[in-house]
């Protein structure tokens, strides 16, 4: 069964460093999403991406964040200058051509900012 994959599974970085989190969505999916979950808290929407552009973003997704789909398979989330409060699990998700169908989530990347 096709699945969303994410790398790395765990990323440790120093405050102020740039990180890139990578996702490979399911191949025929058209809608892509990033979420984050701070330890013990709920899952928060960050951004959605469709047709090579951002469709919707939350107030969390400020200028320090960016997303890219550099080729036909990868979908990346970049944090330019990490802060301590960026420490969280980051989940990628994708959806097929029906925007109201279920989202398939990846296993997540645990980001630890020291």
């Amino acid at each position, binding site marked *: 069964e096709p699945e969303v994959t994410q790398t790395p599974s765990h990323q440790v970085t120093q405050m102020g460093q740039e990180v890139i989190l990578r996702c490979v969505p399911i191949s025929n999916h058209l*809608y892509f*999403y990033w*979420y984050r979950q701070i330890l013990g*808290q*709920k*899952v*928060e*929407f960050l951004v*959605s991406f*469709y047709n090579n552009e951002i*469709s*919707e973003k*939350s107030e969390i997704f400020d200028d320090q964040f960016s997303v890219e789909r550099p080729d036909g398979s990868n979908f990346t989330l970049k944090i330019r200058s990490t802060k301590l409060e960026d420490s969280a*699990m980051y*989940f990628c*998700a994708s*959806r097929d051509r029906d*925007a*109201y*169908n*279920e*989202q*398939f*989530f*990846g*296993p*997540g990347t645990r980001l630890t900012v020291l």
Partner: protein
Amino acid sequence: SQQGEEDPQALSIQEGENATMNCSYKTSINNLQWYRQNSGRGLVHLILIRSNEREKHSGRLRVTLDTSKKSSSLLITASRAADTASYFCATDPRNTGGFKTIFGAGTRLFVKA
């Protein structure tokens, strides 16, 4: 206040009992989804119910949706220890075209063997 609030926040039951979790939301939606998350792991999609549906079943899961009350419930029948996890409802607000999904705070379910 937030879109997608579950109650109870935590639920502890014996294996074999039924578990009911509720979710309330504030804006009109296109659909509502339930997800399960084992501790520190990824999100597993359980079931999606569209705004024009009232009830849906999948195995031991039963989901209801009452759009007039802006609420949903998830029933897990004959629970097993393996059902121990956090359960989240997630809504797609109608005005976002499927581009935004809002999660609730979740219910932590503990099933005792």
